C-alpha cells in the first residue's frame, strides 16, 4: 500500500503542478484574495505613526504583516471549495473510481501548487528582507529550519481543516456556511488581523490554546525571530501535534461519511 502510494505520488504532484500552471489566472485570483494582511498593515501603520503600541513599532508591524502574507500565501488551502463542488456536481464519483485515496489525491494537488505560490511569494520575501530592520530577520540556522518545519505544519493543519469542512459537504447541504464560520474564528484568533501579542490578556491566553494560532501566528513569530530555540521547538511540537490530530480526524470523518455520497447528477 505505502509502496504503491510512494510510486504514484510523484506523478500526482507533477499533474497537480501542470494543473496549477494551466489554471494560472484562477490561481492568481486566489492569491490576490489573500492580501488582507497588506490592508491590516496600512491600518496598524496608521496606529504606529503616533508611537509604538505593545512593543510594536512601524518596522515590527511591517515585518509581522509581510510574514503573515507569506505564511498565508504559502500555506492557505482552498481544497474545501473543490470538494464541495465535487460533491454538489457529482464528479466525486470519478475520483472514487481511481485506484488512489481521494484525500491523497487532494493533498498532492494542494502540495503541487506550492512551487507556483513560492514564485509569487519570493518577491514579497525579498521586499520584506530589504525594508525591515535585521532585528526581525532569522540569524540562527536552527530557527531557520524551525521556520521551514512550521510552514509544513501550517500547511498540513490548514489542509486538514479545509478538507474536513469539505468532507462535511457529504453531510450538510451548505457546508460553506461552516467554512464561513471557521474563517471568522480563524481571522480573529490566528493573529491574521491583529497580532496575538496585542490582544487583551484574557483573549490572548485563549488564542494561544486554540489551534488557529498555529496556522498563522506561530510560523510568523518564528519567521520574525521572536522566539528562542526552546520556545520555537515547543511551539513547533504543539503545531505538529495539532496537525497530526487534524489529519487523523479528517481520515476518520471521511471514512464515516463517504458512504452517504449519492453522486447527484454524476
Amino acid at each position, binding site marked *: 500500500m505505502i509502496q504503491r502510494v510512494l510510486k504514484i505520488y510523484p506523478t500526482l504532484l507533477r499533474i497537480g503542478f501542470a494543473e496549477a500552471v494551466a489554471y494560472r489566472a484562477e490561481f492568481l485570483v486566489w492569491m490576490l484574495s489573500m492580501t488582507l494582511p497588506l490592508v491590516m498593515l496600512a491600518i496598524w501603520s496608521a496606529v504606529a505613526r503616533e508611537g509604538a*503600541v505593545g512593543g510594536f513599532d512601524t518596522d515590527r508591524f511591517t515585518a509581522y504583516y509581510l510574514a503573515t502574507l507569506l505564511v498565508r500565501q504559502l500555506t492557505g488551502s482552498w481544497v474545501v471549495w473543490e470538494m464541495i463542488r465535487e460533491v454538489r456536481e457529482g464528479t466525486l464519483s470519478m475520483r472514487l473510481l481511481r485506484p488512489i485515496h481521494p484525500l491523497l489525491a487532494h493533498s498532492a494537488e494542494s502540495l503541487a501548487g506550492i512551487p507556483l505560490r513560492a514564485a509569487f511569494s519570493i518577491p514579497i520575501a525579498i521586499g520584506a528582507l530589504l525594508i525591515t530592520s535585521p532585528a526581525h530577520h532569522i540569524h540562527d540556522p536552527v530557527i531557520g529550519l524551525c521556520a521551514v518545519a512550521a510552514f509544513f505544519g501550517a500547511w498540513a493543519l490548514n489542509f486538514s481543516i479545509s478538507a474536513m469542512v469539505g468532507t462535511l459537504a457529504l453531510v450538510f447541504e451548505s457546508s460553506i*456556511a461552516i467554512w464561513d464560520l471557521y474563517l471568522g474564528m480563524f481571522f*480573529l484568533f490566528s493573529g491574521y488581523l491583529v497580532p496575538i501579542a496585542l490582544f487583551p490578556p484574557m483573549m490572548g491566553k485563549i488564542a494561544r490554546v486554540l489551534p488557529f494560532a498555529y496556522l498563522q501566528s506561530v510560523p510568523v513569530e518564528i519567521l520574525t525571530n521572536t522566539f528562542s530555540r526552546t520556545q520555537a521547538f515547543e511551539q513547533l511540537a504543539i503545531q505538529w501535534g495539532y496537525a497530526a490530530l487534524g489529519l487523523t480526524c479528517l481520515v476518520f470523518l471521511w471514512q464515516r461519511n463517504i458512504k452517504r455520497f449519492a453522486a447527484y447528477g454524476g
Partner: protein
Amino acid sequence: MKRYFTLWLVQLRASLQTSLQYRVDFVVSGAMSLFWLVWQIMPAWMVWRLRPTVAGWTMPEAALVLAWFIFLRGILEGAVQPSILATVEHIRKGTLDFVLIKPADAQFLVSTTKLEPWHVLDLFSGVAVAIFALSRLHHTPHASEIAVAFVLTLASAAMLYAFSILVVSAAFWVVRLDNLIYLFNSVFDAARWPMAVFTGFWRILFTFIIPIIVMTSYPAMALTGALRLRTAAFAVLGAITFVAISRMLWKRAIGHYTSASS
C-alpha cells in the same frame, strides 16, 4: 417604466416566496447575523482599545463607518450576490438562454432573480451601530446631513451593484467564478476601516478604482457634517459613471455569450 416596476414586484414576490420556504434557514441565519455583528466589531475594538484616536479618528467616528459597512454588506449579501451567483450558474449551464428570450431587459431580470430576506437583520444591525455611534458622539444630525448621507448610501449601493455586474460580465469569459466573488468580498472587507488609515497608494486605489472609501467613509462623514457638498456631488457622479460602465460591459459580455449546452 411602469411595466418594469410591476415586473420588479412580481420578481420580488417570487423570490420572497422561494426563500420563505426555508424557515429553518431564517432562524439559523438570524442567529448567525447576531454572531457576525459582534464579530464585525471586534477588530475595530481591538485597534481603538489601544489608542483613543487612530489617524485622527475616534472610536465612535470609526464605528459610524463600520455601521455603513455592516449595512452595505447586508445589501450585498441579501440582494445583490444571490442573484449574481444564480446568473453565474445560468451561464455555466447554458440556461441563460431562457432568461435572454424573455421580453424584458436581461440585466434587469438577472439582477432581480433571488433575494435572501433574512439579511434585513444586517440592515437593522447597521442602523443600531450608527445610532449607538451618534449617541457616543453627542451629535444629532441635521435634516440636510441625513439627506446627503441618504443620497450617498444610495450611490454606494449602486456602486456595489455595478461592481457585481462587472463580476458577472467576467463570468462570460472565465467560467469558474466562485473565487472572483470571494476576491471581491475580501477586498470589500477593507471598507470597514475609516479612510484616514489608508494613505498614498491605498488612498488612490480605494477612492478611484475600487471606491470602498466612497462607499462607507463618505456617508458616515456626511452624517457628522464633515464632508463637503462638492465631494458628495463627485461621489454621486462617480456612482453614475460606474453604473454606466458596468452597463456597457454587460452589453458587450452578453454579445459574447454562446450558450454552453447547445
